[in-house]
């Protein structure tokens, strides 16, 4: 009993804490305390959930005790539990970082309740076993992200938000269309049940058509080629804490949804569907990294790199071999921590250097060597330098690509890795190494904030730890990939009663 309730906790806690936070909206101290406690509680629940899932296999909670496939189920398989833990880590780090960086004005306009709501939506999407429920969680996290994105109401935020809102609503409508067609075809909404019923469908072409609709809908949310442009147009506009949690989590919900539906439901015509994903992955990697090369604003460079990194994750799904999926899960684990951390550090560069523009920055290494080291760790990890986490993530993926003889994809992946290093060195040279520009811009009085250093420091040490202790992480990713490649495990857990 208590074990299956554990699955619901990562969703319930943020919802309750968010509501409480709304009650004490005027009391800044209480809001911050709730922010730390709430995200901390989710973190503990997520660790327990992953531990339990690893120990006992896939866990299922039938909400309201309605048996599957009639009621909504929450399912925690290893991929879902890993994603929830990563979301919890990012959420906790963001809450700590927000203590010192979020203005009181935004706190009054509901920053913390929105943050909790966002986390609830993200965790709900990772844990649900019902395709329509997935749509609902997507909308929950979207609405929260809309409101967070425009806090401040500046011109750039409005322009970015219009693109973000439009493309995401378009993708939601396509998602809903695909759900409708799928329901009309198989008459079920439970993902495990759909997977079973799809094998009996006589016309595989129609199934592939619906699969393509899902692919378009989710690839917009994941910011994959060709409909990625909403991301670099909007992610650099809100305050840094918001940018960081968006960068870490939101596109990965799209990636997770792709992993889920294309490993569980649409595996009948892998030759076609995964070939399409492969080409999308290749172009996503390339456009992202080339876009980043042309930018000179730290957050925009990082935003374009999100796009190119999404390409790697899709590449893993496209190859669809055991090793590739291990690489994909590993890559997601590495990426979320590194990416959120880089945005946090960009925020500190702004506080200490006074700008996000590379031209106006400079001399940060001399003044703040600690920050420079903190930047180098995730930056090199993103580029894939050993022994950091990114090296192993890329290594596994490229090895999988070689084994699958997808030479073009391998070549592009290596090239993109090199260009990522180029981008990171560009930031290093301009912001940290070169002398501060002559007409020095007004640099705000140096505010030493231990909380910020702690947040980024802990995330950076996680990056190192994933690299140094790659073996246990690899084993975990291997187990998750194994579950993805054997959807029967998921189906049996959901439809076979599945109570623990």
């Amino acid at each position, binding site marked *: 009993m208590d074990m299956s309730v554990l699955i619901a906790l990562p969703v319930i806690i943020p919802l309750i804490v968010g509501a409480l936070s709304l009650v004490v909206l005027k009391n800044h101290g209480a809001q911050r305390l709730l922010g730390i406690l709430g995200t901390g509680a989710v973190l503990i629940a997520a660790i327990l959930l992953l531990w339990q899932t690893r120990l006992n296999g896939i866990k299922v909670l039938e909400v309201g005790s309605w048996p599957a496939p009639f009621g909504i189920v929450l399912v925690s398989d290893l991929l879902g539990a890993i994603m929830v833990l990563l979301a919890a880590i990012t959420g906790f780090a963001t809450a700590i970082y927000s203590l010192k960086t979020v203005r009181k004005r935004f706190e009054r306009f509901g920053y913390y309740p929105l943050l909790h709501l966002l986390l609830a939506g993200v965790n709900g999407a990772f844990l649900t076993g019902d395709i*329509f429920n997935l*749509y*609902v969680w997507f*909308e929950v996290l*979207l*609405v929260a992200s*809309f*409101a967070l994105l*425009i806090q401040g*109401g*500046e*011109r*750039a935020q*409005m*322009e*970015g*938000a*219009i*693109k973000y*809102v*439009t493309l995401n*609503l*378009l993708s*939601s*409508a396509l998602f*809903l*269309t695909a*759900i*409708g*067609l799928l*329901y*009309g*075809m198989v008459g079920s*909404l439970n993902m495990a049940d759909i997977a079973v019923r799809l094998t009996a469908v006589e016309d595989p072409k129609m199934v592939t058509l619906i699969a393509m609709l899902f692919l378009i809908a989710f690839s917009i949310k994941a910011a994959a080629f060709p409909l990625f*442009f909403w991301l*670099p*147009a*909007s992610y*650099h*506009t809100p305050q840094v804490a918001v940018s960081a949690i968006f960068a870490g989590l939101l596109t990965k919900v799209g990636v997770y949804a792709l992993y889920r539906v294309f490993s569980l439901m649409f595996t009948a015509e892998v030759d076609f569907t995964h070939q399409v994903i492969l080409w999308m992955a290749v172009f996503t990697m390339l456009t992202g990294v080339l876009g980043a090369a042309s930018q000179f604003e730290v957050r925009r460079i990082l935003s374009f790199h999100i796009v190119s990194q999404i390409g790697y994750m899709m590449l893993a799904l496209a190859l669809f071999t055991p090793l590739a999926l291990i690489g994909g899960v590993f890559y997601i684990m590495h990426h979320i921590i590194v990416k959120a951390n880089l945005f946090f550090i960009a925020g500190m560069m702004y506080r200490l250097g006074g700008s996000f523009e590379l031209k106006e920055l400079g001399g940060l290494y001399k003044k703040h060597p600690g920050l420079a080291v903190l930047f180098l760790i995730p930056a090199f990890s993103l580029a894939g330098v050993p022994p950091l986490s990114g090296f192993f993530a890329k290594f596994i993926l490229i090895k999988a690509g070689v084994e699958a003889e997808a030479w073009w994809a391998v070549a592009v992946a290596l090239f993109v890795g090199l260009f990522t290093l180029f981008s990171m060195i560009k930031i290093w040279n301009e912001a940290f190494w070169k002398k501060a520009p002559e007409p020095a811009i007004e640099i705000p009085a140096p505010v030493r904030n231990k909380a910020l250093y702690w947040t980024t420091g802990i995330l950076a040490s996680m990056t190192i730890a994933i690299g140094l202790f790659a073996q246990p992480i690899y084993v975990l990713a291997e187990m998750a990939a194994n579950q993805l490649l054997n959807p029967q495990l998921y189906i049996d857990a959901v439809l076979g009663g599945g109570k623990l």
Partner: protein
Amino acid sequence: MTSLMAILIGCLYAAAIYMMLRRSMVKLLIGLILLSNAANLLIFTVAGLERGVPPLITEGAQTITGASADPLAQALILTAIVIAFGVLAFAVVLLHRAYEVIRTDDMNEMKGTD
């Protein structure tokens, strides 16, 4: 009836995409509204158009016999309508605020962040 609905839904999708591709913010909004309505009608139609047969089990029987309307699809549409209402209300406010800040209705002039 189903084919008539199919044509109607197709027209709604086409009109929605056309409106979204225009440069005006207001037309963009109309496009989003049409799009969510089209998706709702699609769910309504694919679940089967059955008229005057509520899904009730007759006395003494164990299951429904014969054709009946699908209540689940209507529950889905109801949920989707509520969600669409929420996000579209947000979109209206956003576009209004954006107009106040940017002072233009033309999407082509919103390139500051590209």
